[in-house]
């Protein structure tokens, strides 16, 4: 074991990863701003849905632009490796803060970005091909501990494997859901569009997608299959970019998969960039290796142990809850369950109080269309919204308001049915990690993960 931690590798792959990730994140922030989503998602809403235990995180109103600017700036500095430690910490904190404001904006790939930025704080990605190393030669190293690059590879492998495992269920494999619903909506694409009218194509895509996720880590790790695997990475992610509205994620994954290539590939790439910048002679090649100081070393071991343990356990926490995961969504987020459901619902809320006052809620008066859409299918958000209503009407002078919901949810082609017990007063229910007994059962078994 100790021998492994003493192994060294070139710093080039980590440097390339840093540059690619930083630039893509910078571009993402610009894109987000250009599409007006900062205002639409963080300033327009009257209410937000914070994560459990993080209710203190709230949108700073117009100042959210400052946080986005900070995030974008730190992404850029991160990319070029200027004041790397501060940039990487700021990038992680600002990005994660933004994502923690509202559950409605949760996306698995934002979670991925947060986690990878967290890891990068602790890795020596700035010792090579960075402004920091350029300005201060004592910071420049061509060699770093191998585990630093392996940590990234391990994380990526875990994500793919869990994403693949998440697809091993009867919905995805036996019913080709939800691709069977989504693919026909793209049947007007040139060349391949008409294929999507056939159900067997949905089955092929489902099975290939699952096999891709489960096999790609091994194919990328294995030198003999690497080039072929990377071709697969490009094809797979470009296809998802064409078929689904998932933003920058495909490109981030295509760039991330580069980390599996040997150091030579990365060194050549950096040499090319260096010559374009006219700085070829500045590249360092030596056997000097970046070393962590002893205190850092032990802290790092603890940190990464906890980190990977967390990553391995989180996707399985759903086993602690009864009922169908896709229906109750208890333990669904933060587990790399990507694009597994076509789930849509409508939630009609009613508030009444002891004095006989009564209101049927028009959700549009409280929530944005996106928030309403997300809330209507996720019980924890339904509960949060119920509390928003309870508190709103309390403030209006209603006496001990009760909140009930008449919900109707369709999932993966099933006819809609109620998700929540319409007789439970949600105003009295409290959120916790325990199972929510007022979620009605699906009464339909989904086998697998």
């Amino acid at each position, binding site marked *: 074991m100790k021998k492994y931690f003493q192994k060294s590798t070139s710093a080039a792959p980590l440097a390339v990863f840093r540059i690619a990730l930083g630039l893509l994140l910078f571009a993402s922030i610009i894109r987000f701003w250009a*599409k007006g*989503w900062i205002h*639409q*998602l963080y300033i327009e809403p009257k209410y937000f849905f914070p994560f459990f235990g993080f209710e203190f995180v709230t949108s700073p109103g117009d100042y959210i632009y400052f946080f986005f600017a900070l995030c974008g700036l730190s992404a850029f500095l991160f990319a070029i490796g200027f004041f790397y430690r501060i940039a990487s910490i700021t990038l992680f904190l600002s990005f994660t803060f933004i994502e923690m404001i509202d559950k409605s*904006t*949760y*996306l*698995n*790939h934002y979670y991925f970005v947060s986690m990878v930025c967290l890891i990068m704080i602790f890795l020596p990605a700035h010792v090579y091909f960075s402004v920091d190393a350029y300005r201060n030669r004592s910071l420049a190293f061509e060699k770093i501990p191998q585990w630093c690059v392996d940590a990234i590879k391990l994380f990526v492998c875990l994500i793919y494997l869990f994403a693949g495992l998440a697809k091993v269920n009867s919905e995805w*494999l*036996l*019913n*080709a859901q939800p691709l069977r*619903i*989504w693919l*026909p*909506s*793209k*049947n*007007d694409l040139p060349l391949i569009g*008409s294929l999507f*009218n*056939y*159900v*067997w194509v949905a*089955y092929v895509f489902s*099975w290939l997608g699952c096999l891709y996720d489960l096999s790609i880590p091994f194919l990328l790790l294995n030198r003999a299959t690497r080039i072929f695997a990377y071709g697969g990475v490009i094809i797979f992610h470009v296809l998802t970019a064409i078929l*689904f*509205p*998932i*933003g*920058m*994620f495909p490109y981030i994954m295509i760039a991330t998969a580069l980390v599996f290539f040997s150091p030579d590939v990365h060194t050549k790439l950096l040499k090319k960039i260096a010559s374009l910048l006219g700085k070829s002679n500045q590249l360092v090649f030596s056997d000097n290796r970046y070393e962590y100081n002893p205190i850092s070393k032990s802290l790092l071991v603890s940190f990464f142990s906890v980190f990977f343990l967390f990553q391995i356990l989180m996707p399985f926490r759903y086993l602690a809850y009864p009922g169908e995961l896709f229906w109750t969504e208890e333990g669904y987020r933060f587990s790399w369950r*990507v*694009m597994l459901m*076509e*789930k*849509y*619902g*409508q939630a*009609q*809320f*009613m508030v009444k109080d002891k004095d006989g006052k*009564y*209101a*049927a*809620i028009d959700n549009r008066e409280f929530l*944005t*269309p*996106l928030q*309403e*859409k997300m809330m209507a299918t996720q019980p924890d958000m339904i509960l949060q919204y119920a509390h928003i209503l309870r508190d709103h009407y309390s403030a209006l002078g209603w006496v001990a308001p009760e909140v009930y919901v*008449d919900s*109707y*949810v*369709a999932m993966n*082609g*099933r*006819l*809609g049915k109620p998700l929540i017990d319409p007789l439970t007063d949600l105003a009295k229910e409290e959120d916790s990690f325990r199972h929510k007994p007022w979620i009605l059962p699906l009464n339909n078994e989904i086998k697998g993960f």
Partner: protein
Amino acid sequence: MVLLEKGKSILTFILVVVLSSCGGSDEPTPVDDDSKDREAILVHWADNIIKPSYANFNSKLEMMGSKADDFTDSPTNTSLIEFRSAWLSAYTEWQKVEMFEFGPADRYTLRNFFNIYPADVNGIIANINDPAANLEVPASYARQGFPALDYLINGTGIDDAAILAYYTTDTDAAKRLAYVDKVVSRMETLLSNVVTEWNGAYRDTFVASTGLDIGSSMGAVVNAYVLYYERYIRSGKIGIPAGIIGTMVGTPYPEKVEAYYKRDISKSLVKTAHQAVIDFFNGKSINGGTEGPSLKSYLDGLGAKDATTGTLLSTLINNQFSTINDKVDELSSDFYNQIQTNNQAMVDVYTNMQTEVRYLKVDMTSAMSITITYTDNDGD
């Protein structure tokens, strides 16, 4: 050797799973792939339903305009009766285009100017006294269109003689006639704008947009269709007057029925609107009555159904439409009276319409992969 045995059994397992899924135990009979051709649906909608509907309405509106002219030129008992008859005919025909609030109608917010009720009587009177009154602003919605005409020709006196006096002998008679002209000509102008676009370049733009994303034709149509059913038929024509909010019954507002002043046509108006909604779902051509590519054929092509019973979603939707029609038939033609004598019958209609709203807004849109939101952002 053990490994080989294990490998064989895993392979066998995989093959069995693959073959059994290919057997497709839940596959319906093979469907015609053309049923998922959205362009065909858009073409059928544009050429065989939407444009002919507008053409029919246009001619009824023109007739109403002509009778309005006759009346305002010379208000007599005869011209009043003829004007009213043409108004009724146009109002009924309007019910067949009211749901098309997308494209040009959406841009001109046609429905807001044609049929927002109850009429704002004080506002109408104020506008009569102010010839420069602005009919473009939201505050003016209830002061124009069919509801305003309803008040003007049916509600300005206890009988036709009194109504006539309002337009002949009363001091403000001339101003009132001028307002009738103003309201009618505005309706004609607005409709003409919409019809011109449909008969012009818009039709091709409409059928070319074959995606399902925000802003696509089918996305816009389905969103408008569902919204219309939920908010304008279910709530507007039935729920609000019956005092139903959410799923509970509160205080009814019988004066908020459609065509409150004419009083005896609320039922026929909602029947016409409802039938138009049904016919649109089934792709029924206006001229000829044959069914073409439609929401129904699209849903059937997707195999959308209730997995527990095997019933097609389109069948569930049509059956529910039929149930609602039966319930509406049980109502009096005078909703104002219906609400005051037996509101429960209105509530029954509403409850059934609510079931239909859920089929359309949740089951249908989910099966078609259409989003009912106006937010475009990344989804995971």
